[in-house]
């Protein structure tokens, strides 16, 4: 077992100003290897911005995002969005593209792409144009694409928000299995049932600040902040 850094990624006092408003306000969060983190919070609280900033899509206005190193290099990471964007090519070629961009040469590229498809149960649809797959299939393909890059940290921004219950269950199963293999899961959701099923710990965001970080089983019984308990009361009867 290789020696691992004490943390994978850390936001230190990160502020992000978007269109004149502060989407993140001195938010700090250190993610160690291990538990599955679900970020909760009301609409506009800054959940998606936090994930995008950690992922590197949004540059912080103030503060820093630091990546710990794993075996002497920054931890590998990938992100899955609410609506995956697929290229106009086959499902298999979409994964091959991501691998090619990240410097994976043949024949490993084809082997890893096929393995990733098999991982999410889409082998039968390998040759199908990706953009005509159903929403649930596209999201599983997005998960396979992210997984093929062998991320140490996988960010998921409301990955099932546009899916029906059946597809949601499939996607949750895939996420749980990635976590079981050691991929660090950091996801947002509006579905509290999903948060209960997938979270080891809850990070609660209110008005751009991380106000609470609690083990999941505790959070739903006895949240540590008034904002969180108000949020839970308002959100449970959905």
């Amino acid at each position, binding site marked *: 077992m290789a020696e691992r850094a004490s943390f994978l990624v850390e936001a230190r006092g990160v502020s992000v100003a978007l269109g004149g408003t502060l989407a993140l306000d001195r938010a700090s969060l250190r993610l160690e290897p291990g538990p599955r983190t679900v970020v909760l919070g009301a609409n506009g609280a800054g959940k998606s911005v936090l994930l995008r900033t950690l992922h590197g899509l949004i540059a912080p206005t103030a503060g820093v995002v630091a990546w710990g190193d794993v075996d002497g290099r920054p931890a590998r990471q990938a992100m899955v969005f609410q609506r995956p*964007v697929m290229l106009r090519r086959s499902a298999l070629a979409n994964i091959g593209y991501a691998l090619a*961009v990240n410097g994976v040469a043949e024949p490993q590229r084809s082997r890893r792409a096929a393995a990733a498809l098999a991982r999410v149960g889409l082998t039968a649809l390998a040759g199908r144009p990706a953009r005509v797959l159903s929403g649930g299939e596209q999201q599983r393909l997005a998960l396979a694409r992210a997984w093929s890059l062998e991320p140490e940290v996988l960010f998921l921004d409301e990955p099932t928000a546009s899916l029906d219950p059946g597809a949601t269950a499939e996607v949750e199963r895939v996420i749980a299995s990635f976590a079981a293999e050691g991929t660090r899961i950091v996801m947002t959701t509006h579905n509290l049932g999903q948060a209960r099923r997938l979270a080891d710990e809850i990070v609660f965001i209110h008005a751009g600040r991380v106000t609470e970080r609690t083990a999941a089983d505790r959070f739903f019984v006895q949240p540590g902040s008034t904002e969180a308990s108000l949020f839970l009361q308002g959100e449970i009867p959905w």
Partner: protein
Amino acid sequence: MFEIFASLGEALALIGGADPALAGIVVLSLELSLAAAVAGAAIGLPLGALIAVGRFPGRRTLIVTLNALLGLPSVVVGLVVYLLLSRAGPLGSLGILFTPAAIVVAQTLLVAPIVAALARQVAEDAWREYEEQLTSLGVSRLRAVPTILWDARFSLLTVVLAGFGRAASEVGAVMIVGGNIDGVTRVMTTAIALETSKGDLPLALALGAILILVVLAVNAGVFAIREWSARRHG
């Protein structure tokens, strides 16, 4: 009025009889316009996508310039190419003035800005959809250019078609640099202009009819490809 119908009848006879002189003009026209469309696309598509996706100093100036070039007076293009290719000009040693090659050069200069400006629009729309996902996958802006071009390939086919139409319908520049030499650089548009001024209306009409038919056929083909691709690729 009667004259038009009489000419039309003779025109149909010319087309129906596959008049070799007529056929030669038509084939040459299509070859040159196709070559210009391909060359214009080779320049214009990457340029348009690069401007859409890239962030570099002078980008806005380039966009304004490009849009201004859409209204480029073709006679001026003809004149400039003429000066460049004439015996005393900087490219005179090539010796291609009054050859089909000169026509392709002039047409390409007219086609490339159109393709680039329209491709920029298409690529910008695609980039808006793809930017976050591609950036997340680790795709650089430069690397995104070929990706966007390939993914928007069916929309861009229409763009190239617009370029082909521009090339095929050009008269002024083609007349200046080609010289409308019978059997060498006489194309449909210059032939129509010449035959009309000579009073040979049947030939002019026949050429006009073929020109329109060709444009229609190409448009129909592209439309069919787009329909098919939309069904297949979403």
